[in-house]
C-alpha cells in the first residue's frame, strides 16, 4: 500500500501529531503549575510548623535573653521538635536579635556543615549573601511580618523567617533553612510515558478500525467502479456495515441496475447509428452513378447544336447536378469518417501552393461572377508537406466555397500563408456574414448550419467543415477560426511542414 494514498495512515499520522503537540503543551503547563503549587504547599506547611514552634519556645521571656547556653538548648529542642513533626531535618537555624544580628546559629554546631565546605553552590550562595537577599512580605494572618528570602521555586532550599513577638513587640527572628525535594517532575514524566503508550495503542486500534470500516469498503467500491469504467455493468457490491458507506454501496448497486437497463439501450442506439451511417453511405454511393451519368450526358449534349434557350436551361441543370454531386460527396465522406472507412493515401513532398493554386483556379468563375476582390500573394512560393492531396483538396475546396458563398458581391477574400515553427498556417479570410460567438463551438459538428447560413440563398449540407476538420486532424494539424459577426471570418489551417 502506498503511504500517500491511504486515508488510514494519513488520519493516524495527523492524530498522532495532534496528540504529541497537545501532550507536550499540557505536560509543560502541568509541570510548571505543579512545581509552583507543590512548593507553596511545602512553604506554607513549614511556615506554620516553624511559627508554632517559635511561639512555643520563645514564649518564655526569660529565654529570650540570648545567653548562649539557653539559645543552644532552644536550638536543639527546636530541631528535635521539628524532626518529630515532619520527619525532616532542619538544615539551618539562625536566631537574630532585633538589630538583625545573628545571636546564635545551629549551622556552626551541626556536624559536617560549614559555609565553606558545602558543595551545593546554591546553598552556599544563600548562606554567604545572607540578609542581602531578604525581602519583606506581609502576611495578613495575625498581623505577623514574614521575611522570606527570594528563592527560586525550582531550587531545593526553602528559607523561612519568623519574627519572635512578645507582648506585641518584635524581639528578634528565627531563620530556618530546609532542604526540600519536589518529586512531581518524575511523576509527570512517568505519567507522560504511560499516556504516550496508551495513545499509541489507541492509534493502532484506530488504524485497524479505519482500515476495516472505511478503507476496505472504499477499496471494494473502487474496484467495482473501475470495472464500470471498463464497461462491465454486472458487478454488485456487498458491504456488511450499516452506515454511510453502506448507503454509498447501495446507491452504487442501484446505479449498476440502472446502467444494466441502459446498456441495452446504448447498444441499440449504437446499432441504429451504425445503420444510419451505412444507410447514408449506400444511398450516397448509389446516387453517384446516376449523377455522373447526368454529368457526362450533359457534356455530350453540349456538343450538339443547341438553341440559346435550351443551352441556358441545360447550363442550369448542369449547375444543379454539380451541386448535387458536391452534397452527395459531402454525405459520403461524413459517413465514411463515422464508419472509420475514410482511408488516407499520404504522399511525401506535396507542394501546398500547388494544391491551393488548383483550388483557386476551380473557383475563379465564382470569384469573378461576384466581383470579389481576391488576393493570394504567396501563389509563387512553395511549402512542402506530407499529405493526402485529394483529401486536402476537399478541405480547401470547402473553405473557399464557404468564403465565396457567404461573401456578398464586391466583398474581399484573401489567402495568406505564414510559417510558424514547424507548421505552415494557411489563412483564408473573407468579408462575409461572419459567425456568432455562440455558433463557434458547433461550427465543426455534423449538419450544423447557422441561422444566417440557412436563410442565405446558398445550399450547404452542414457537413463540409466537419469533414475538413477531420481531414486536417488526420494530417496532425488543426483548423481554427476567428470571426466577427456581420463583418467576416478567418479560417486558419495549420499543417506540419515536412
Amino acid at each position: 500500500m502506498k503511504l500517500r494514498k491511504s486515508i488510514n495512515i494519513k488520519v493516524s499520522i495527523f492524530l498522532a501529531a495532534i496528540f504529541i503537540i497537545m501532550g507536550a503543551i499540557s505536560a509543560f503547563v502541568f509541570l510548571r503549575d505543579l512545581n509552583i503549587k507543590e512548593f507553596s504547599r511545602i512553604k506554607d506547611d513549614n511556615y506554620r510548623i516553624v511559627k508554632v514552634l517559635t511561639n512555643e519556645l520563645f514564649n518564655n521571656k526569660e529565654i529570650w535573653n540570648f545567653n548562649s547556653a539557653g539559645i543552644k538548648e532552644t536550638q536543639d529542642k527546636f530541631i528535635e521538635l521539628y524532626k518529630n513533626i515532619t520527619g525532616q531535618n532542619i538544615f539551618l537555624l539562625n536566631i537574630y536579635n532585633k538589630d538583625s544580628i545573628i545571636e546564635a546559629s545551629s549551622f556552626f554546631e551541626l556536624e559536617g556543615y560549614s559555609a565553606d565546605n558545602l558543595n551545593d553552590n546554591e546553598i552556599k550562595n544563600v548562606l554567604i549573601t545572607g540578609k542581602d537577599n531578604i525581602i519583606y512580605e506581609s502576611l495578613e494572618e495575625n498581623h505577623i511580618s514574614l521575611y522570606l528570602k527570594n528563592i527560586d521555586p525550582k531550587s531545593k532550599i526553602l528559607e523561612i523567617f519568623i519574627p519572635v513577638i512578645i507582648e506585641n513587640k518584635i524581639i528578634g527572628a528565627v531563620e530556618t533553612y530546609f532542604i526540600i525535594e519536589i518529586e512531581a517532575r518524575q511523576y509527570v514524566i512517568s505519567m507522560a510515558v504511560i499516556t504516550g503508550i496508551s495513545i499509541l495503542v489507541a492509534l493502532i486500534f484506530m488504524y485497524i478500525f479505519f482500515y476495516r470500516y472505511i478503507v476496505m469498503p472504499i477499496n471494494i467500491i473502487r474496484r467495482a467502479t473501475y470495472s464500470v469504467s471498463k464497461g462491465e455493468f454486472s458487478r454488485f457490491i456487498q458491504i456488511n456495515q450499516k452506515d454511510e458507506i453502506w448507503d454509498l454501496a447501495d446507491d452504487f448497486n442501484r446505479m449498476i441496475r440502472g446502467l444494466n437497463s441502459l446498456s441495452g439501450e446504448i447498444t441499440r442506439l449504437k446499432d441504429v447509428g451504425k445503420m444510419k451511417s451505412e444507410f447514408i453511405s449506400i444511398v450516397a454511393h448509389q446516387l453517384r452513378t446516376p449523377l455522373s451519368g447526368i454529368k457526362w450526358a450533359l457534356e455530350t449534349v453540349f456538343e450538339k447544336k443547341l438553341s440559346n434557350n435550351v443551352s441556358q436551361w441545360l447550363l442550369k441543370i448542369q449547375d444543379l447536378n454539380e451541386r448535387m454531386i458536391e452534397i452527395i460527396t459531402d454525405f459520403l465522406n461524413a459517413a465514411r469518417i463515422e464508419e472509420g472507412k475514410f482511408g488516407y493515401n499520404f504522399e511525401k513532398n506535396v507542394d501546398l501552393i500547388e494544391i491551393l493554386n488548383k483550388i483557386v483556379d476551380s473557383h475563379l468563375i465564382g470569384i469573378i461572377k461576384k466581383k470579389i476582390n481576391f488576393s493570394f500573394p504567396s501563389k509563387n512560393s512553395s511549402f512542402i508537406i506530407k499529405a493526402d492531396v485529394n483529401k486536402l483538396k476537399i478541405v480547401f475546396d470547402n473553405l473557399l466555397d464557404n468564403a465565396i458563398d457567404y461573401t456578398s458581391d464586391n466583398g474581399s477574400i484573401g489567402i495568406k500563408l505564414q510559417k510558424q515553427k514547424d507548421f505552415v498556417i494557411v489563412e483564408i479570410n473573407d468579408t462575409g456574414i461572419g459567425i456568432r460567438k455562440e455558433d463557434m463551438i458547433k461550427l465543426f459538428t455534423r449538419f450544423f448550419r447557422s441561422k444566417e447560413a440557412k436563410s442565405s440563398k446558398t445550399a450547404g449540407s452542414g457537413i463540409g467543415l466537419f469533414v475538413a476538420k477531420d481531414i486536417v486532424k488526420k494530417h496532425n494539424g488543426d483548423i481554427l477560426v476567428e470571426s466577427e459577426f456581420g463583418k467576416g471570418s478567418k479560417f486558419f489551417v495549420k499543417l506540419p511542414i515536412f
Partner: protein
Amino acid sequence: MKKIVIIEDELILAEALKERLTNTGYNVFVAYNGEDGLEYIRKKTPDLLILDILLPGINGYDVMRKLKESNIKVPILVVSNSGQPVEIEKSQEMGVRDFIVKVDFSLDDVEKKVRSIIGD
C-alpha cells in the same frame, strides 16, 4: 485507328463515353459486363481498356486477373464510382495506367487521359 474497349454497366455513361471517343477518332466497343468485355478483348485486341470496377457478374478486378492469366497485355484506365484509397492502391498493384473517379471528372478529362496513354 486505335481500338478502345469500354466495360461499363451504366448505359448512359458508356454511351456518352463512346460518343465522345468516337468523335475524337477512336474505334470504340462497349461491353456492359465483364464476360462480354473479355470476349471483345480476345477478338479485337484493343489498344486501351476503359474498365469500371463494380459490374454485374465478374467485377473489374476479376477482368484484370483473367487478362493477366491469359497473358493479354492491354493498357487499362479504371473509371470507378468511389475512388477509395484501397481501390486505387489495389488497381495500381494490378498495373493499371490511370484511375478516374466518375463524378469528379468530366468527359474532357477522360479524353485527355486517354490521349496521354495511347496517343491519337
